[in-house]
């Protein structure tokens, strides 16, 4: 058994190691080392907890068993999950953190004396507030992440679910959580505690169902942030520095990512949360696009010819590449081009894919060196000097309308200046509009050649034609 002061110092050390873990991610070179810091911090926190309890009776065996089962499941998932499924994996993991926070809060509520929080029916006021906030945020994180998981996995439709009075209902439920916590503090009633948790679960569901598929990068980042705040709430209850530091780090990390994603879509956080984007405005657009505009379409042979004669090619991947699992075929194509001394780079829009950095991971998986992959602001000026832009699975993020038409719902969103290239190859299954429900002007430009096919199949065909 070690003293409370000593264990507090060890918790501080593990907090510092977690900070270093995030710091390591500032460059791919230091990131692996950062991850080891994170693992070390976790081991210290767990070992110190065992030592500070100092109870090495048979019950310790059970803890180890549960740890081992959880560890085995986690390891199994980590090695088996395909990289294209990262968004739903992260959403699933968030739900586990949320649920764990709820359970720890419940355990503390039922048995407050082991945490030195008072006795049942007379829990310290501050602790009661902290644990009920931790439980409520944890519950929202849990049910919200489950919905996000189901949507990303395709089990639930990705289209927004909207009904009348939705926002009013959410607001009323949100306020009722605060009122319930107030009464919980006054009465210490267990029933109010349970009702608070149940309502929080409901809020989590209602909060995520109106948000559509392409807004998922914001949703995942937001839930990431919530899981941090839940952990911090529990950290205050347990008076544990490691948890408080970690909760604050994760909370601010998720908040920053949400901010970056919103900015990349030129939308306010509030409008994403209120949801329903792309659900109602498609009706007018359909009338407009009925007048058939001429489109040039080509086949793999044309595309291969164009690229072979280019001196520089920029690849613009999007969510469609992930769906078609085309990243490996794409890499093969790029290898062939490079053999012909063609300069190839990749341009990535911040919201391409379903979570922040989604495209970068897929390209890394296909062995694309990370120094050939560029972010929007670093590469946008290069389009004007390049011969071919190869758009694969992206759509709205290339739409020039965002720069020209103030009436467009995506006006003001930063987009890749793909149309400035001498020619544009656009791989797409059909002419249907993208997520925002608007037509992409790029399809009808003179220098655009549409390649109507599945992204993977088309890329493979181009590879054959490059020989």
């Amino acid at each position, binding site marked *: 058994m070690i003293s409370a002061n000593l264990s507090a110092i060890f918790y501080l050390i593990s907090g510092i190691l977690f900070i270093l873990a995030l710091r390591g991610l500032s460059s791919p070179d230091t990131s692996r080392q950062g991850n080891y810091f994170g693992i070390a911090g976790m081991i210290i*926190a767990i070992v110190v907890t065992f030592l500070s309890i100092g109870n090495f009776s048979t019950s310790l065996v059970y803890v180890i068993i549960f740890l081992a089962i959880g560890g085995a499941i986690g390891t199994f998932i980590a090695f088996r999950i395909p990289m294209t499924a990262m968004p739903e994996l992260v959403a699933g993991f968030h739900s586990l953190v949320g649920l764990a926070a709820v359970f720890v809060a419940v355990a503390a509520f039922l048995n407050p004396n082991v945490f030195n929080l008072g006795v049942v029916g007379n829990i310290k006021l501050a602790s009661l507030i902290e644990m009920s906030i931790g439980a409520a945020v944890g519950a929202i994180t849990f049910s919200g992440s489950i919905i996000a998981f189901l949507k990303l996995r395709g089990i639930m439709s990705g289209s927004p679910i909207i009904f009348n009075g939705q926002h009013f209902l959410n607001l009323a439920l949100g306020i009722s959580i605060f009122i319930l916590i107030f009464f919980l503090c006054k009465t210490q009633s267990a029933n109010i505690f349970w009702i608070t948790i149940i309502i929080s679960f409901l809020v989590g569901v209602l909060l995520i169902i109106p948000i559509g598929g392409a807004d998922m990068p914001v949703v995942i980042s937001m839930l990431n942030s919530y899981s941090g705040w839940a952990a911090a709430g529990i950290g205050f209850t347990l008076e544990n520095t490691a948890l408080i530091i970690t909760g604050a780090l994760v909370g601010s990390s998720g908040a920053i990512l949400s901010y970056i994603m919103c900015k990349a879509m030129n939308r306010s956080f509030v409008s994403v949360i209120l949801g329903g984007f792309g659900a109602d405005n498609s009706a007018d657009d359909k009338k407009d696009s009925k007048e058939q505009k001429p489109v040039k379409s080509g086949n793999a042979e044309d595309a291969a010819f164009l690229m072979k004669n280019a001196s520089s090619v920029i690849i613009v991947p999007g969510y469609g590449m992930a769906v078609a699992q085309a990243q490996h075929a794409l890499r093969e194509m790029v290898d062939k081009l490079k053999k012909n001394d063609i300069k190839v780079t990749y341009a990535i829009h911040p919201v391409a894919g379903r979570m922040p950095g989604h495209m*970068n991971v897929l390209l890394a998986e296909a062995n694309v060196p990370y120094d050939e992959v560029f972010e929007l602001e670093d590469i946008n000026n290069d389009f004007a000097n390049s011969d071919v832009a190869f758009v694969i699975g992206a759509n709205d993020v290339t739409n020039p309308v965002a720069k020209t038409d103030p009436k467009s719902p995506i006006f003001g969103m930063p987009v890749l200046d793909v149309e400035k290239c001498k020619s544009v190859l656009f791989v797409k299954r059909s002419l249907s509009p993208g997520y925002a429900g608007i037509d992409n002007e790029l399809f009808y430009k003179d220098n655009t050649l549409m390649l109507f096919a599945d992204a993977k199949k088309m890329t493979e065909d181009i590879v054959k034609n490059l020989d």
Partner: protein
Amino acid sequence: MEIDPFIFRLSIFILSIFIGYYVVWSVTPSLHTPLMSVTNAISSVIIVGAIVAALATSSGNIFSISSIFGFIAILLAAINIFGGFLVTQRMLQMYKKKKDKKK
């Protein structure tokens, strides 16, 4: 008058938010997915609360309701810790520079 220890914890909390703010802005955008999976793994440090809940029962009965909640929370957090760190490691292994692959 003495300062309530809560104020100290609040100070740690707020300063950590600032640290998080500056550290996360310096994360390169191409590593945003590993950032999410690693923050996920470290937020599972909530397992320390779960261990206390599971082990430190006043009655010595580990099958009381509160320790059962503790044990389930250990299981959930352990999935996250192992899954989170390992999947991050797996992703980070894939990020290579041009020179690495040309040898």
